[in-house]
């Protein structure tokens, strides 16, 4: 597992941990039922507050990415394909919104935008 903390990014540290672990679960580099480091040890290794790491784990658990076994620790949940699809859909919408904003700023027509979209689709084949 890789967790890199950027103190100057302006993104809350618990959020950085949450996003990085979540991405590794979605990408499959953290696999089903894999144990995660304990809240305390992760905090001490990253040299951050225990409260911060606990919050990241709480959010991951709430969103269904990890589960806790009392006295055993935290583990990666079985991959929830629906959840991941939902997450990806959200990201796709986000990227499209940004692309359209940029296109409008640059004065692109609807036709030109669709052309770019079709081209990108062709490239994938």
């Amino acid at each position, binding site marked *: 597992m890789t967790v890199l903390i950027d103190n100057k990014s*302006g993104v*809350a*540290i*618990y959020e950085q941990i949450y996003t990085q672990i979540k991405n590794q679960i979605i990408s499959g580099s953290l696999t089903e039922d894999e144990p995660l480091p304990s809240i*305390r*040890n992760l905090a*001490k290794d990253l*040299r951050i*507050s*225990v*409260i*911060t790491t606990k*919050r990241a784990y709480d959010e991951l658990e709430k969103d269904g990415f990890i589960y806790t076994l009392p006295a055993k620790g935290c583990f990666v949940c079985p991959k929830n394909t629906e959840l991941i699809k939902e997450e990806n859909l959200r990201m796709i919408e986000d990227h499209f919104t940004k692309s359209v904003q940029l296109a409008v700023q640059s004065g692109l027509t609807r036709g030109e935008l669709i052309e770019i979209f079709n081209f990108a689709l062709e490239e994938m084949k």
Partner: protein
Amino acid sequence: MNAIEVKNLNRRLGDFFELTDIDLTLPKGYIMGLIGRNGAGKSSLIKAILNVMDFKGQINVLGKDVDLVDKNKIGFYSSEFTFPEYLSVKKIENLMKNIYSYWDSDMFDAYMKQFDIEKNQRYGSLSKGMKTKLALAIALSHNAELLILDEPAEGLDPVARDELNEIIFDFTRSENHTVLISSHIVSDLEKICDYIAVMRDGRIVMCDEKDAICEKYVIAQASVEDFNAVPYEYIIGKKETPYGIKGIVVREYAPDNAVITEVTLEDMFVYMEKEAQAEDESYAD
């Protein structure tokens, strides 16, 4: 369980209010940083918690009234710590073995090795940094569950301070281990602490989770008009120039069109103290 519970702590010396209405809770397994200017009452509070000073109020340490707590379980460091210059480190260790019931020689040896201190060296031959490290090693070598450190970073170079932080992190890997640490080096406390308490004039003026403090407030820079539209109670402190105002405000009440940057604990502390100073001066007028 709470490692330290202070309720309604007061202490007066004649007309001087040394400590006033202090309430403080430090849960077991966490690190709390105590910040304040010289004379704010940090050392007095620590002395009360160590039960070496009279006070009014209630203090519980490790689940027991402070009168009844097993002192072996408290590791204490103060920069006032000193030993006779001619004693060797070995002799000092022998003294400590007689003082503490659960002295751990292996642990002490390991620290001496880590700190590059030879046991036949005399206390007087050690540098200031080495003396601090020796005193820390003693505090850590008698199976204490609560570590109370009064200004441990004082006089340490940046590398030694980093080692100190490392030691504190490792100590709190066990959830039974708690640390209360006072320091002037706010940036170090920001790195290691779970909770922060700020003292001024013998009172605790702010006490919260470190993350909560840094999340609640931001540094905002805005034009004089925009900044002055922020209600007074949401401003922690500010600095005015002819070209605008820079200040710390509650995030949701940041002025319109402000340039926002994240707040550090050091900013927070400096702005708070400056504001208090300005208020005192305006009362004096």
